[in-house]
């Protein structure tokens, strides 16, 4: 991950991970975990709005909470206003540590020392309290984030009191000015949250977040619970406050158009990982990752004249207890190929379906399939009740290619070779798969990075150009 020169970096997270354990009730077996956030690198510059988009359950909210250390991380480091050299050294050490033949000398000690001295995740109570002053959060639903038994001014005054801002009069004066900044006049200060409308409540939540004049605010779906006309008011307010107080935002939302309106840079998350990072305009006009393309093409546009072809993704977000291997998007990806992360189980199912579908006339004569056995991640065998002729063998190979081309059964791209053992009464087809790799965030141009094999293994630009054309993403309304 590159830190572009010039503006200073406010907050940088390195290899953030958060796994949530699941209670199973079994004592001695290994506890399954939800891989909610799995190795995320990101940074936020001063005065910048970074948008995080993704479907529900992709770990956006967990990321937001991790950044404020509202939940304890599983691993990773978070630097707040740390000097660039420290962070650079840390990344260097971390990479060395991760390589297989690392010498475990005093590098580890240095790594831990840096973490202890600078990482928010390791800091003690005192430092954490300082950090809490500088960072704040606005939650999605103002109904549940405001105490119903407190008056508005008390709600806004609470953080001021906690951080010993000053005398009571000073505190309430500040609360009143803050509320005024957020568009709530003095007639509101003595009211209770239930007397306000949804938009007004969200204004109170924003005023409370700004109470200690923080540098950095996490906005966790701040407008999802609001109506369109009120949403516009809140978005305008946030923009105004950002410019006034030179704030940095982490803007979390599933509403893509709103994120586009608000943010300078965008992180696209899928299943606990970042798949694409870039400047907002670049991501929206020239998306790189197949997931981003599909996501953007499925945004409903409030304009009947823009008729767009949609890429409709099959299936749903994967189960993060057992996340897919390799690229986590590969089971739904319309362009997945050999190294994307296919494992025996996936390919075997697809293979058996193809063999038993009888879609190809010559193959209807195939003997019945007895069963399939998974040998390891890259090999599996299928036992057929009867012998196969050499002709059948070529037919099988041909059908695999046809399937990939015609119906987009992408799993079959991972087949490396097929061996057929005809020596016994039943014939055994052994299938070897290509090895998969985990895609890494890779700079494509400028600040625009993507985690996708298409760009590293070649052919990326061509494939994606076609995908973009298919989804007619670039058609905007020009009449």
């Amino acid at each position, binding site marked *: 991950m590159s830190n572009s020169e010039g503006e200073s970096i406010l907050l940088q997270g390195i290899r953030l991970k958060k796994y949530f354990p699941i209670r199973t009730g079994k004592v001695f077996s290994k506890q399954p975990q939800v891989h909610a956030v799995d190795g995320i690198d990101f940074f936020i510059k001063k005065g910048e709005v970074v948008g995080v988009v993704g*479907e529900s359950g992709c770990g956006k909210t967990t990321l937001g909470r991790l950044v404020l250390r509202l939940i304890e991380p599983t691993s990773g480091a978070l630097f707040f206003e740390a000097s660039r050299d420290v962070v650079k050294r840390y990344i260097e050490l971390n990479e060395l540590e991760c390589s297989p033949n690392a010498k475990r000398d005093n590098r580890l000690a240095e790594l831990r020392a840096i973490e202890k001295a600078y990482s928010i995740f390791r800091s003690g109570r005192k430092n954490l309290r300082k950090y809490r002053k500088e960072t704040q959060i606005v939650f999605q639903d103002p109904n549940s984030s405001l105490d119903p038994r407190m008056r508005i001014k008390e709600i806004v005054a609470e953080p001021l009191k906690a951080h010993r801002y000053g005398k009571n009069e000073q505190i309430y004066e500040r609360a009143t000015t803050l509320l005024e900044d957020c568009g709530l006049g003095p007639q509101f200060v003595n009211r209770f949250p239930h007397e306000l*409308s949804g938009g007004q409540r969200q204004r109170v939540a924003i005023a409370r977040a700004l109470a200690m004049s923080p540098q950095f605010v996490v906005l966790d779906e701040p407008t999802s619970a609001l109506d369109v006309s009120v949403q516009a008011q809140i978005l305008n307010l946030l923009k105004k406050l950002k410019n006034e107080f030179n704030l940095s935002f982490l803007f979390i939302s599933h509403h893509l*158009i709103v994120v586009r*309106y608000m943010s300078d840079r965008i992180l696209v998350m899928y299943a606990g990982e970042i798949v694409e990072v870039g400047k907002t305009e670049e991501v929206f006009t020239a998306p790189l990752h197949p997931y981003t393309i599909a996501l953007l093409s499925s945004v*409903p546009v*409030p304009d009947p004249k823009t008729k767009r072809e949609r890429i409709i993704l099959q299936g749903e977000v994967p189960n993060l207890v057992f996340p897919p291997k390799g690229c986590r998007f590969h089971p739904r990806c319309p362009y997945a190929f050999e190294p994307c992360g296919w494992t025996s189980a996936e390919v075997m199912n697809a293979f058996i379906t193809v063999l038993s579908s009888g*879609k190809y006339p010559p193959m209807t004569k195939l003997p019945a399939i007895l069963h399939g056995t998974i040998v390891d991640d890259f090999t599996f065998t299928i036992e057929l009740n009867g012998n196969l002729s050499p002709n059948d063998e070529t037919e099988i190979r041909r059908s695999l290619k046809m399937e990939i081309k015609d*119906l987009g059964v992408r799993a079959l791209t991972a087949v490396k070779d097929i061996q057929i053992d005809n020596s016994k009464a039943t014939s055994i087809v052994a299938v070897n798969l290509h090895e998969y790799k985990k895609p890494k965030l890779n700079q494509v141009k400028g600040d625009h990075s993507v985690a996708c094999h298409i760009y590293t293994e070649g052919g990326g630009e061509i494939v994606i150009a076609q995908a973009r054309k298919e989804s007619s993403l670039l058609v905007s*309304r020009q009449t």
Partner: protein
Amino acid sequence: MTQEVELSSSTNLRQDVADEPLLRVRNLRISFITRAGRIQAINDVSFEVRAREVFGLVGETGCGKSQTALAVMRLTPEAGVIERGEIWFVGNNLAKNISNEFKLINKKNGQVKLKRNKSQLKRLNAEVSEIRGKQISMVFQEPMTSLNPVYTAGRQISEALIRHSIVSLIDRMLARNRATEEKLKEIADLTARSRLSEEELHGLLKRLGLEGLQDELWFILSKKDMPLAEKKALILQLGRSKPKAVTLRFLVRLKKSGGRIPFNYRILNGMPVVRKLFVGVIEKEALNASLELLSLVNMPNAGNVLHQYPHELSGGMRQRVMIAMAIATKPKLIIVDEPTSALDVTVQAQILELLRYLKDTFNAAILFISHDLGVISEICDRLAVMYAGNIVEVASLTELFENPKHPYTRGLLAAVPKYGEKRETLQTIDGTVPNLIDPPKGCRFRTRCPQVFDRCSQGPPWIQVGKEHCVLCWLYGDSDKHVEQ
């Protein structure tokens, strides 16, 4: 009314009355009687939904769009009363005796108490339940709360089928019993040769005396990725499983009584093992039909989902179950209330695609309720914009987006960030939705309207401003242009 119902259940063919709208709501007014006062939730709503169209209702929270839909189904919550209005659905007024349904008693302390006429409500329920769920069905916003968590998906879909189309279930079984090898072979050959339309298929089955098989055949033939040989095999298999003689007798009796279990079978049905031969058969058939419906809504792995409970399904799958339930009885009108608000964009795209497909296959009309202008513009043909209990503008989709007239519609459209452009500030509508206990006199948008003038304190007229484009606003108000709602 019962006549009407039988007519539509006996045949799948739709007799379209071209001009007559499917649903016509006129001057609907609903109030909620609460301790705080009388909430005038719906002031004066009139609209019509034509056959086979998607009609959208857009508006912000609390504008009454969901209450309008619930009123059409006569499902207004307990505190609410329909004070006035007519709800015409294919020749029936569903709000016939509204004046008899409740009484408002003025108490001494100025409060109003609502007293309902229970016997009238019972009668109403008996009448409406023949239409509700059968000819009008509904898909709700949050599928988790509208599905029953203790029943499997299959059972919940079967329930709708058994409640509303038990006769067609029996017909299916009887027709399969009548189906001989030769007849099935003839069907298989004919369908293999050319693709039959629904009417042709119906004609063919009528000639052979196998009308009940229509649904099953149509389902088999419409499967996309199935080779012809397999389809043929499936068709030939239809006649394989024949019910036992006792069961058959029971089915015939049941059909004669129109789905009510005959008296002398009731005891038998109470016995756990024997039950399998009687009502159990119908339940099994309903489960088969549910499986077909689930495949029709593109449910991945439909066979398993049939036996799963709602909590085991993801949001998109739950919504598919809801949609399968809604189309189970082949309704003429499907009301969908924010069907995608709880879903992600990629799943939302799948569901919208599905609704569009189903609308075409079933020739149903859809009343689509949403607050999301993006979703609305993806699917609707015509739409109405609601504000604080009034419909303020009605137009076709393109007309409304191109040429919005009402200041509220304009404000609403401007408040949405656009996909293709980046602006520094968004336009907003100042203020908030008025309290409907004491709404503004005259035009209810008056307090927030940027173009307000003195006439607005009187109730605005309903004015036609273009072809099929009406607006409730004084800005376009010359008295000669007024139109009857």
